[in-house]
């Protein structure tokens, strides 16, 4: 756990509020049927973890670590956010090695 890491919550908030025009960049075969894999969902969960509303459980960590689909979105984000990178920071900051 890295207690000193400052998370860019404004980018997370922007992504959580965005209706995700990037989602069409995710190939249809990658995690279909799972809304939780798009960047906006990862940002929403991250904000809840940072805000203390979602406990840093193994299930939440597992959800946040599933970034394969969101990785396709980074290059097409109209606002230039790297949510996958930010989510990794959230994991590093809020989830211990056993979290």
């Amino acid at each position: 756990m890295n207690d000193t890491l400052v998370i860019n919550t404004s980018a997370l908030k922007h992504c959580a509020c965005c209706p995700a025009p990037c989602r069409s960049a995710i190939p249809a075969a990658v995690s279909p049927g799972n809304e939780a894999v798009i960047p906006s969902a990862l940002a929403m969960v991250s904000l809840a973890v940072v805000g203390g509303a979602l406990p840093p459980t193994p299930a939440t960590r597992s959800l946040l670590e599933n970034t394969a689909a969101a990785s396709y979105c980074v290059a097409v984000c109209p606002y230039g956010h790297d949510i996958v990178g930010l989510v990794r920071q959230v994991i590093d900051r809020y989830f211990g090695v056993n979290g």
Partner: protein
Amino acid sequence: MPSLSTPLASRALEEVLAARQSPSWVPALRALVGDQAVRDDPAALWVYSRDRSPFAVFNVRRLRIPASLPSAVVSPTSVEELQQVVRFAREHGIAVLPFGAGSGVLGAAMPVSGELILDLKALNHIVAFEPIDGLVTVQAGLNGAQLEAWLDERGWTTGHHPQSLHMSTVGGWVACRGAGQSSSRYGKIEDMVQGCTVVLPDSRLLEVRPVSRRSVGPSLKDLFVGSEGTLGVLATVTLRVWPKPQAKLPLVLALDDLDAGFSTLRQIMQAELRPAVVRLYDAHETAHRVGGREPFDRKPIMAILEYAGSASLAALERDLSWQIARSHGAVTAADTPYLEWLKTRYLSGSVQYQVRDWYADTIEVTGRWSTLPNMHREFVAAARAAHPQIDFGAHWSHAYPEGACEYMTMCLPPMPEDEAIPLLFGLADQIQDIALRNGGAISHHHGIGILRGYKLLDELGLGVEILQAIKDHLDPQGLFAPGKLGMPDRGGQR
């Protein structure tokens, strides 16, 4: 009618999670469709607790559940599996809510009473493409932009280009009775749907075979176009498709006032011309897009039109339209505003406000040409009376020979939420009343969802009883999309 100040009972995420218990039927559902297809961990349920309605966004940014957590989420991977899940839900008395990409803005995809979410995005296959007939059949969970890209590679298009193209599914287009930005030429979704299959609440599969039309009683497919999941789950949809247009020609106009704009659009549509794109902006939205630029510095109303099809047809339609526009004092402008619009046409304009804690919302109504000018004056007066700092603008798109859709954006600056939400909902309520009083409709293409449901009686009158009777017959337990489309929720409240 729900209180406008508290349309839904939002609560803090932490508080909801503390009181939550996983339903006893979840292990049986896992056994039915497999572990991977069912999710009920708190983080996943948080993700599915919202759609893209501004009301949901206001809550999410404060880590609040807009209305309810879903009880669980299931992702069927075939139509047969979807039928199994529906049968399971019926046997266990579980309320269900179909979910595509959740891009709706009126709460139609938002759980209100712990529904089991049916995420349809794994049903994302193209079933058949029949170019001789100009038809494509797809599963309902296919992303709209992915369908367009697939068709584009083969030289075809649906002609359905909503702002939400990249963030919505084909099933969502149909379920909300949507309209795209090229609708004045290609029609709305109800014009494009030629057939469909629907998993009914008793789990049987209804098939409406795709044909151009049939004279065999009321149109069954139209019962499901706009049904918002209340009558069943769309499984597949057959759409009319078109060869990609050879040419797309823009026409950007500057006009003296809105009356000249209304007259121009009306006469274009009534002259049997069919521009693909028709957009008329009020002075506020024109200034926002092209403020100060020539010729809008002297003619403050902008219209953007696009003509599509064969090069000669598009050119002829544009020329004939220009003759009409010129007779109303219009001048042409450079194509720059059209090119800028093309770049941002699939992005949401409200994000920039929501992220700064403004309260941005939109509302779109239908009006007739004869009443649109007065209707708009009443809308503006209501907005100005609502709050002195409101950022209010309008444009007219989706033009018809009889009238057009007026699409309004209303943004309030940061303020306490218990002040802002009643103001926004109160203004939306007034706008709907004004539309009805002027012979219009309360919703043009966003649907009804939760947030317009209380107005359905004013809009449909006795028609509500007919819809309810059909609902009661198909779904006697009231398990499908409770609370949507003006139907009662699980507690019997509309």
